[in-house]
């Protein structure tokens, strides 16, 4: 079998390479199929046109004669302006729908009908009318001394009613 000796400076193919390398070399020397280049070129053209058609959505027409950098700047500015417009428009719509309530020119208070001389109701409504109590007539006594009550006789304390309790450990503690 062939044992090549190409690439002497690299020493990659030394004498004594195995027979198996003939198989690999056979594949490595394989000729490319007919028309491979044309097919690859056609595939590249297709890929290119696919790229163009997908990019055309955002691309500017080339006939305007603007450079790539200027186009990019213009695009950025337009996008920024669009964002600002959308934000401002949205906030205006919200503010136009929700008007703040106008403050009242005069505050109407409920009528205050608290009884004369009583506590004020502090603005509470539906205060129930309190009834006047019965008037007690004061009778004047003929003998003022008789009318004064006698002081109650003091009852003597009954010793022995309450028992003192002796705790068994109290004397020990002292």
């Amino acid at each position, binding site marked *: 079998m062939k044992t090549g000796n190409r690439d002497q400076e690299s020493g990659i193919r030394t004498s004594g390479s*195995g027979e198996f390398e003939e198989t690999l070399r056979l594949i*490595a020397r394989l*000729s490319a199929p007919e028309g491979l280049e044309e097919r690859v070129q056609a595939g590249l053209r297709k890929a290119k046109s696919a790229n163009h058609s997908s990019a055309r959505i955002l691309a500017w027409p080339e006939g305007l004669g603007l450079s790539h950098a200027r186009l990019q700047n213009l695009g950025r500015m337009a996008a920024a302006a669009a964002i600002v417009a959308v934000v401002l428009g949205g906030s205006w719509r919200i503010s136009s729908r929700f008007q703040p309530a106008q403050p009242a020119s005069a505050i109407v208070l409920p009528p205050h009908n608290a009884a004369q001389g009583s506590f004020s109701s502090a603005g509470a409504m539906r205060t129930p009318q309190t009834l006047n109590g019965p008037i007690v007539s004061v009778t004047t006594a003929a003998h003022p001394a008789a009318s004064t009550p006698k002081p109650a006789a003091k009852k003597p304390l009954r010793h022995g009613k309450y028992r003192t309790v002796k705790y068994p450990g109290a004397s020990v503690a002292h």
Partner: protein
Amino acid sequence: MHDLARKRAEEEAVAELVTQFAGTLYRVAYSVLRNAADAEDAVQEAFVRVLRHRDTLHEVRDQRVWLIRIVWNVVLDRKRRMKTRPETDDVAELARILPASGLSAEDRAAAAQHHAHVLACVEQLPAKERQVLMLSAFEELSSAEIAVVLGTTESSVRSRLFRARNLMAGLLNHPRSLR
């Protein structure tokens, strides 16, 4: 207008790369995927990636190695996603691509069987060793260039290749020794 001219020039440069390197990329892709349609798809995908990054083309020092690196990554991605191909598919595919001259039908079938067996053993190698071994079969790639494609050092490529050859020798003598 200047931008348009620059864009056109970049596209022409990509078209030139296709003419120059499509065949090389196809072989690299085929060595891993071992299916003509899959390899062609991988080449297509690699050039689409190039087209996407065409504005950086002028920064690339070695366009050939750069392209091989791109297609290598595409191919590894695809291989990861693909199911394992049955060995019989490999035999049929190899019988199709083997040089027909001077071989009888029986010899061709036997050779296809042998190559399929070798490729099955290659599949059993650890990933790093397998990749170096596969790329080393390409006569247009030096060990330094293989190192660039794999994103490693040249000395690492050499040691991996040494290990790969030893492992392959063991596998071909004792087919299940790595399993």
